[in-house]
């Protein structure tokens, strides 16, 4: 459904995105992950034919975004970063305007409006002026606008910004339910969101694609060592040195919790048995032991920071999930 090949976009001397390539098939949800200013919005604007790429080609449903913008625009639903709502209209006036702009009329328009209002639970505010709605409702109106013509391709720029946790879950469920029949691209800088709703993640930083994979494989790929976390009832003062005695342990790391340490060993090696035997032998009171896999958040930090040449921060990343 979406095919992007080597698109580059320059504003004067500034290169906003540099040779970005990816594809999204029908039924797939792709997350675009990156810090602010990474080029997510620029890429989305190229896909919606809002701006052209300086180089490279982007295609939506087989139509070129620069050559056949009319055809592309008919097939996408787009939620920009700021929900594009008219404050002076009521929710139903606004949706009817967007529907007609999108070529809907008569019964199609009515069913389209009813469908999105039900999906996004906007029924209770349909006669309210958008100016009087909360940020969360406006965001939902923005989403409704993108869905009203039931487009095969959805492009959502940070769809859950400004929503409360309950609404975020609802919107994620909605996106997941749309996935079957649509191709969806969403951008986010919130990592759990990418893991929660997407089959594939593209990490973009400084305009360049740093990685593209499934959320699981991304974390696996980046793991260069196995880590286990050990919690003890009565850890000795020199616990860091003591654990080095165990065969296979390469590094011992502290965590904010004084009772818990992280043990690092070579990739593919399982030292849990040795550690258990050793700890029990020392009578330290083993409370908990578990393997630690990297969260997407760590992957994200690692990949994007390596780009900037910043030092890696392995030490505490595992214990802090945002």
């Amino acid at each position, binding site marked *: 459904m979406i095919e992007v090949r080597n698109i580059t976009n320059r504003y004067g001397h500034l290169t906003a995105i540099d040779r970005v390539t990816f594809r999204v098939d029908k039924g797939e949800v792709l997350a675009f992950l990156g810090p602010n200013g990474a080029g997510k919005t620029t890429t989305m604007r190229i896909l919606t034919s809002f701006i052209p790429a300086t180089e490279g080609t982007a295609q939506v449903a087989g139509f070129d975004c620069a050559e056949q913008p009319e055809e592309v625009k008919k097939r996408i639903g787009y939620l*920009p970063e700021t929900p594009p709502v008219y404050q002076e209209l009521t929710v139903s006036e606004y949706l009817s305007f967007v529907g007609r702009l999108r070529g809907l009329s008569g019964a199609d328009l009515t069913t389209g409006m009813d469908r999105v209002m039900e999906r996004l639970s906007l029924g209770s505010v349909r006669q309210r002026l958008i100016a009087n709605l909360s940020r969360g409702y406006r965001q939902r109106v923005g989403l409704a606008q993108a869905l009203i013509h039931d487009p095969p391709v959805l492009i959502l720029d940070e769809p859950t910004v400004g929503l409360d946790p309950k609404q975020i879950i609802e919107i994620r469920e909605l996106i997941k339910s749309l996935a079957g029949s649509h191709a969806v691209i969403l951008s986010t800088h919130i990592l759990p969101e990418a893991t929660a709703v997407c089959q594939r993640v593209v990490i973009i930083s400084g305009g360049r694609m740093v990685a593209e994979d499934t959320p699981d494989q991304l974390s696996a790929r980046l793991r260069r060592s196995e880590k286990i976390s050990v919690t003890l009832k009565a850890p000795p003062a020199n616990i860091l040195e003591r654990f080095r005695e165990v065969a296979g342990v390469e590094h011992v790391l502290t965590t904010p919790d004084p009772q818990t340490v992280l043990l690092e060993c070579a990739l593919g090696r399982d030292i849990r048995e040795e550690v258990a035997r050793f700890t029990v032998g020392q009578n330290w009171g083993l409370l908990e032991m578990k393997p630690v896999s990297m969260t997407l958040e760590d992957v994200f930090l690692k990949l994007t920071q390596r780009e900037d040449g910043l030092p890696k921060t392995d030490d505490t990343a595992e214990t802090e999930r945002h």
Partner: protein
Amino acid sequence: MPPVQAIIAKELRSYFVSPIVYVVGGVFLLTFGFLAYLYIVFTGAQAIQLMQMQGGTAQINLNDLVFRNLFASMRFVLLLILPILTMRLLAEERKLRTFELLMTAPVRVVEIIVGKFISVYLVFIGMLLLTTLVPLTLALFSDFDWYPVLTGYLGMMLLGGFFLAVGLFASSITENQIVAAFTSFGLLLMCWLLAGLGSLLGDTPAGHVVSYLSFMEHFDHLVRGLVDTKDLVYYVSGTVFMLFLAHRVVDSSRWK
């Protein structure tokens, strides 16, 4: 419903739920009414003077004394008022990021420009229609020639269309409504002052060209009841040209 109609309906709705139309329309009608009152009272005073001097019934020409003056004054009022109507048309869309919605919908730029222009033009026509109460009331008590009044209204419609197109262009180049309004004031004032430059240059080819470019003379012809193709061409081509410029600006915003 084609997109143009959807845009017109939405713009009209936006105008009438915001206070802009009521304030601008109110000021316009008040000014029109007040100016008409002044000219009528003034004409009345002149008539009494004439009667005292000539003794009998004096011939008072309402067309010359009231309507010509009234329409001539309205040029300036329109110049001040219409940019306020047009300033929000595109600048607000940019400011509130709804511009992206329009540009990513399957709508052509020309449809956006034409839809916006027609909607503000309809608002303006509505305002003009309300002013016809003045000649209609006057017709109950006096005799005057309707023809130059109608061509005067035609002149106002053409002049207004041109002003609105200039305003729409000014609104396309910025996201700040104040800047848009002042840009159209500036452009229209320059266009007005061209008449002065034209008379300074006198009866030279350059003088004729410059005078032609100013909207002053063309309007005067219409107010006097002279419908000349040259004047119609001036206004229509000027309006289309300004809309074309607005189209170029909006279209090129994709390439920046």
